[in-house]
């Protein structure tokens, strides 16, 4: 079985992508809302990723 080493960003990006697709599909009732909500979730994941990342960097000195 292959072994892969992803960086923090790559792993978090993939996590956000897959989770957003499923959240979009399962929570909304039409395709437009699904696409919008999936994109919204992905944006929130990315915002949290960069926001918390910078907060940790700045907080750590």
């Amino acid at each position: 079985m292959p072994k892969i080493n992803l960086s923090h960003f790559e792993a978090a990006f993939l996590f956000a992508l897959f989770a957003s697709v499923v959240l979009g599909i399962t929570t909304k009732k039409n395709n437009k809302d699904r696409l919008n909500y999936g994109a919204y979730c992905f944006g929130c994941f990315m915002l949290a990723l960069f926001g918390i990342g910078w907060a940790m960097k700045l907080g750590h000195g």
Partner: protein
Amino acid sequence: MAVTTTVASAPEASDKPQVNWILLVIAAWLIPGAGHLLLKKTGRAALLFASVVLMFLFGLFMRGMMFTPEKGVDYLTSLINYGGFLCDFAAGGLYLLSAMFGYSQPDVPGAVHDYGAKFLVTAGLLNILAMVDTWEIATGKKD
């Protein structure tokens, strides 16, 4: 005076095809997206299948730990072990196959292993969402 009665609405309920939602949910558990596929929601089925399977495979490739239902040294550890096992198990056929082929990664320190364990757990949780969605569609609560 004429008395009018309406009895036309009764046959409408039986017009809908009856589906066995239990079998559909079991199919959705075994193969991610299978419930949607059986309900003729092909596009959604493909996206769910790809998302859950890829997340699980990335978890395996990152050598994520698979939780086992065992008692820990304290209550919180036991909760994590049992909860983690339930989430891993929710991935259905993917979990069964990986257990059948002897995948057993011990808990080792490292960011990649840690991400792997989270990917495996989240694949199961996302599959639960897909199963609930299957149930909602099968019972007519959602299109």
